[in-house]
Every structure is written in C-alpha cells, then in structure tokens.
C-alpha cells in the first residue's frame, strides 16, 4: 500500500473518474483507477503538456505569471510521475528509486509514455538538449 496523499493535490490535472475519486479522497480507488487506465490518462497529460510548452520569461509581463505557467507544467510532469507509480503499484510492483527512474520528458520535450521511457533508458537515449 502506498501513501495516496500526494495524489489528492488539487493542482494535479486529473480528469473524469480520477477527479471524482480525488474529491472523495478515495485513495486506494484513485490509485487503482489511474494505474488500470494508465494509457488514457497519460494521453491526456501528454496533450496538456504539448499545449502548454516551456515557459519563457519574455512571454510574460510579470514574474508571478511566469511562475504560474511553470507551476502548471510542473504539475503535469508530477502527475505523470504519480501515474507511473499507480501503474506499477496496480501491477504489483515496487516504484523504482529516483536515480533509477526512467525519464519523464524526452529531449524534444514530449511527455513520455512509460513504455517508451523504459525503452530509452535501456538503450541510453535519455540525453537532454541544452
């Protein structure tokens, strides 16, 4: 059993059934829902990440707006990380240690599906662009 508290964070862009379970604070059911339906939730997060893009200071008039834009991106990436944890837990596995975790974002800044990330990790293709 994992601590589901982090999954309740309102900043996380859960949708549909997962959002309902979050509002009920139904931790086990929420983790199970996310884990069993990883592909669908991942697809939504990947689309959100692509639409947001990487914030650049020159595109914002205030520091606060700039930081809020980054917070939205950070929430999407954090949601993907939790989604992976949910999938691993749902399949009976144990989450990997941070240094051993497969990449979340590709060099061209796509949110990676766990299977693709594992493939990149195996073949060493996780370099990021400067």
């Amino acid at each position, binding site marked *: 059993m*994992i*601590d589901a508290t982090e999954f309740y964070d309102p*900043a996380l862009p859960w949708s549909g059934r997962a959002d309902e379970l979050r509002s009920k604070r139904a931790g086990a059911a929420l983790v199970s829902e996310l884990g069993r339906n990883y592909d669908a939730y991942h697809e939504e997060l990947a689309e959100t990440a692509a639409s947001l893009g990487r914030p650049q*200071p020159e595109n914002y008039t205030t*520091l606060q707006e*700039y*930081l*809020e834009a*980054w*917070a939205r991106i*950070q*929430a999407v*990436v954090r949601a993907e990380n939790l989604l992976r944890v949910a999938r691993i837990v749902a399949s009976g596995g*144990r*989450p990997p*240690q*941070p*240094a*051993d*975790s*497969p*990449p*979340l*974002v*590709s*060099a061209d*800044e796509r949110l990676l599906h766990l299977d693709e990330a594992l493939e990149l990790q195996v073949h060493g293709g*996780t*370099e*990021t*662009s*400067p």
Partner: protein
Amino acid sequence: MASTMVKGVALGSAGTSATPSPTTNEQDYCYVGSPPGFSVANHFADTGTVWVKFWMDLTAFFPSENSVNSALFDGLEEQLIAARNNGLAIILTLWKYPPWMNGLSGTTTGQFQQGDKTAAMRIPDDVSTTSIWASMITCILTAYSTGSSTPRRSGAYIDVLEICNEPNGMYWPQSTPAGLRTAGCKVGQMMQTALIISSWFGNQATAIAGPGAVDYKNEGSPDGMNWNTPGSWADVDHTDAVKFSQDVVASFTSVGFVPGTRAVFTMHNHTDIELQRTYVAKVRELALRGSWAGWPYANVNDPHLWITEGGLTDGARVRLGIGVSAWPVYRALLIQIAWNNLHNNSTSVTGGGAGIDLFTYYLFETDPAFDCGLIDSVSMGRATRPAYAVWKGL
C-alpha cells in the same frame, strides 16, 4: 579539462543570524578586533582567499509569513557591500526552515521531530514555483540578484545562492517509510525552481548552487563518520553522497530540465579531509559525468563541482587518535593533503583530479563549539594556527 581551484572561506552563521554587531562578532565580515590590521577582511586578503560564504538562517530572517527581520537583512547587506568592495565573490547559503514555511506550525524550530533532526530541518513538501518556499527565493533574489531592478540596497549583491545545506544528513525525511529515497529528488526540484526564478532576472542573474551535500559514504568504517546499512543507500539519518547526488541529477534529467551554466553543483568535504580521500571526486565521476549539464560549460562530459564547506574539528582529532599537542600541525598537514588531492590534474592514488573549482574552508576565527578554524577564537586569544599558514601558502 583542467581547472584551477580557488580558495573560499565560510564564515560562521552567527555572523549573520545574531543581532548585527560587527564590533563584537568575529564571524561578521566587518569585524576588526585587535591587533590593528588583523581584521576578518584582512584574513581574506592576506591568504589570497577570493570567495566568502555567508549564511542566511531562514528561521531568523523570516520569523513569520508576513514579516522579515529587517535588522538582520541590514546587517547582512553591510557585509555584502564590504566584501564586494574588497573584490570578493559571494555565496549566500540558506539553511533551516521556519515552521510556517515547512508545514510544522505549532512546533518550535529546535524541537526534535525525527531522531536528532529538528523541526527546522524538515524539507517543505511544496517547492514548486508557486510555493511559499519559492516566494522566499523570489524575495531573496529580488533583494540580491545583480539583475534585479528593485534591490534592497545598491551594491549588496551576491554571486551565488546556495539553496540548502547538507540535505543528505541534516534534513528529513531522507526517504519514505517504504524505503523510497525522496530527499535528493526534492532538493533537485528546489534547484529547478530557484533556477526558474533566477532566469527572470536575466542571463547574468545570480547562479544557483546546491545541494551542498555531506560527503557521506555508506561503507561501514571505524572512523565513526560513515555508517553501514546493508542493502540500503539511505537510512533515517543519511543518504550516501553519490546516491543522493544521482537523485538530484535524476530529478533534472528525468523531466528534461537542463541545469545550464548558472547551475553550480556543490559538495562538502569534511570527511574527505579527515580520511585523506576524495569522495567528492567520486560524486563528480559517478553522479555528474554523463548527466549533469551545469556550470561551467553545460557539458555533461565535463561537469565541475564546488566544495562549499570542509574543515576538521576536535572530533576528527579524537577519531584519528591524534594527541592534543600534535593536532594543530596534523590538521594543517591534512588540509595540505586535501588540497593536493583535488588541485588541477592530481593523479594521487586517492582519486581527485580536475573539475573541483572551489575549495571552501570552514571558518577563519574558530567556533569553540565546532572547532575547525584557522585562527583561535577571540576568547582563545586569536592566535593564528599552523593551518592558517598552510592555507595562505596554497
């Protein structure tokens, strides 16, 4: 690529967190004392020390969510201006968290929470760009970044903001109850957030440094400084320096966040000095090389790191079995060996080599409670120790 290691000295935190009093506080950069000409500022000039590290105790500077301790800010700024006027480069290191910042309101900062760790050492849960912690970073960078349009005081700038202190030994939690390491990842997120905020102030903005990790090595040894937890790289009190650093780096690379040339990876080397080893060089080889695109070139094939604190206390003397009378000279010798092991392309058997660009010693005037200094404290008579002469000659 070869490097030229330069010298820094960290002054004690009392110099900035006690009520400002440069006339009586020997950890204050502006302290003069006696004899004439033997000021703290002169120690830097006399020894060729070009970096100074100041502390910001967040519990003292930010006592509540809606107020800052202006007197402490003013006192720090006097020292920043004086140091800059003398040509020094400046690191400001943050440590301790007030309860309102780390979610432990209702506790006192000194109250033990987990083992020997106090409430002030609890890492905030939220370190995102819109967190309370980020607001504090924004406040500091607005005050002291060279790119700020609204600095607190003209001339009071810092070159580097080190966002934490010894998080793999001082902070908690190190891991989840199930054993999943978390502290390194959290510190990596803190560095990202600080880099994002700093980027707002432009390309020449303040560099962001971290993690300032302790050179802990999980290998069970009789020295008493290390520990051995079979099958685990972390326990309730420590995380191995290499593993911790790998977690920090992974928190960047896993999300495609390139640290960049304004991100400085920092370590402490107290135990390396004591044991004549170079575990910090192992951190560079095993955690940074191939992964860390940070200062100075944003090149994963040539990552550099800085040592932002190291020193030898009387505890080291006891562990090494050195007599009191022999210790001053022995300490000086160990400092010389530590420098030699890391400087330029050293090929000493203990490791080392290029890529360690700053070696910061902890304290000129010593702190009797953490007796590392190169000079006796004022209460001891303020005599220079053999280590001072060695430091000057490096």
